[in-house]
């Protein structure tokens, strides 16, 4: 599975073309933003280009060079943010960090060209070493929309979830108050305020207790434990002697 930033050389259509999306696998285009320059790591900005955001990945294609394009999957984007600090970068932009989970122990941090020393100058860049990417729209008013779209798509791409031994698949089966969110994204529940936790009219499933209370644990019936505890408690109540008391009951 390709992770991290990668080069895109394939395009659909004529002229500047478009990215090739995997429509057979439910990939769909969410947003197109022309007039975006891309800044990889500390490299100079590359421009002009067009940004394509699908529900699975971010693709930037150069408007002038059909051989030049970059893409990264949302699962590899560890964070994204709107950056308006001129000291951080001269222009307002979307700042992202990219993780490449293929880089594990053993990979040296030597230098960028370590694997491509036979390339022509710095033309061939080891993209897997890129950990920061900025997207600079020529219209800074688009930043909030871009950020929101990034958030949406990131939410659509959670890490693959594996089932625990003996437990049901965790991750998208959580139930909490139905009135928490009127929000759009089905199955994706953001909590914005503590007020939204007020309760508990919404739990439909008896199997899945509302889990928003600390200590509540999905499949485990805490009520039973509590009842047992109470039974035991009664025995202690009668025992006024400081000394030992029978486990079978003082009375």
């Amino acid at each position, binding site marked *: 599975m390709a992770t991290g930033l990668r080069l895109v050389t394939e395009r659909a259509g004529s002229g500047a073309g478009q990215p090739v999306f995997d429509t057979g696998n439910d990939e769909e285009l969410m947003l197109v933003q022309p007039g975006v320059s891309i800044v990889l790591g500390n490299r100079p900005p590359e421009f002009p280009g067009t940004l394509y955001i699908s529900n699975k990945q971010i693709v930037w294609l150069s408007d002038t060079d059909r051989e030049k394009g970059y893409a990264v999957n949302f699962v590899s984007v560890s*964070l994204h943010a709107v950056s308006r600090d001129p000291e951080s970068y001269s222009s307002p932009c979307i700042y992202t960090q990219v993780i490449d989970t293929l880089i594990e122990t053993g990979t040296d941090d030597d230098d960028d060209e370590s694997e491509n020393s036979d390339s022509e100058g710095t033309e061939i860049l080891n993209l897997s070493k890129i950990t920061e990417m900025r997207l600079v729209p020529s219209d800074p008013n688009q930043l909030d929309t871009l950020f929101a779209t990034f958030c949406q798509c990131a939410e659509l791409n959670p890490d693959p*979830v594996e*089932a625990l031994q003996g437990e049901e698949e965790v991750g998208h089966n959580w139930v909490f108050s139905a009135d928490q969110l009127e929000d759009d994204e089905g199955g994706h529940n953001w909590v914005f305020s503590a007020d939204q936790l007020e309760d508990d009219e919404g739990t439909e499933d008896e199997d899945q207790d509302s889990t928003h209370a600390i200590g509540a644990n999905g499949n485990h019936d805490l009520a039973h434990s509590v009842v047992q505890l109470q039974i035991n408690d009664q025995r202690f109540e009668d025992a006024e002697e400081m000394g030992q008391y029978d486990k079978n009951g003082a009375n």
Partner: protein
Amino acid sequence: MVIPGVQLFFSYFKDLVGREVTVELKNDLAIRGTLHSVDQYLNIKLENTRVVDQDKYPHMVKPNSFFYFFPPSRLSVRNCFIRGSVVRYVQLPPEGVDVELLHDATRREARGG
């Protein structure tokens, strides 16, 4: 990737919405901000975000071979979205922590598992 007790943490973080937290990522970057929202994957959205000065908190910089270490660039952002899977720690405001409650809950979580 399933983290045992994620439900517990999700519940806990929901109560911290509106508080200042510092999120330390697996790549050693520390980001401070107001917790705007959290979801069931522990994706975190922060507002008024700024990067924590690593020099001030040297104990937070650890060698991390899993992710490529990069020199932290000065980054001042307002709104930030952090993927749950890259979070290492979330530092909580002391007044936001009911230690008793949390201990209790984690004990129960461990027993029930």
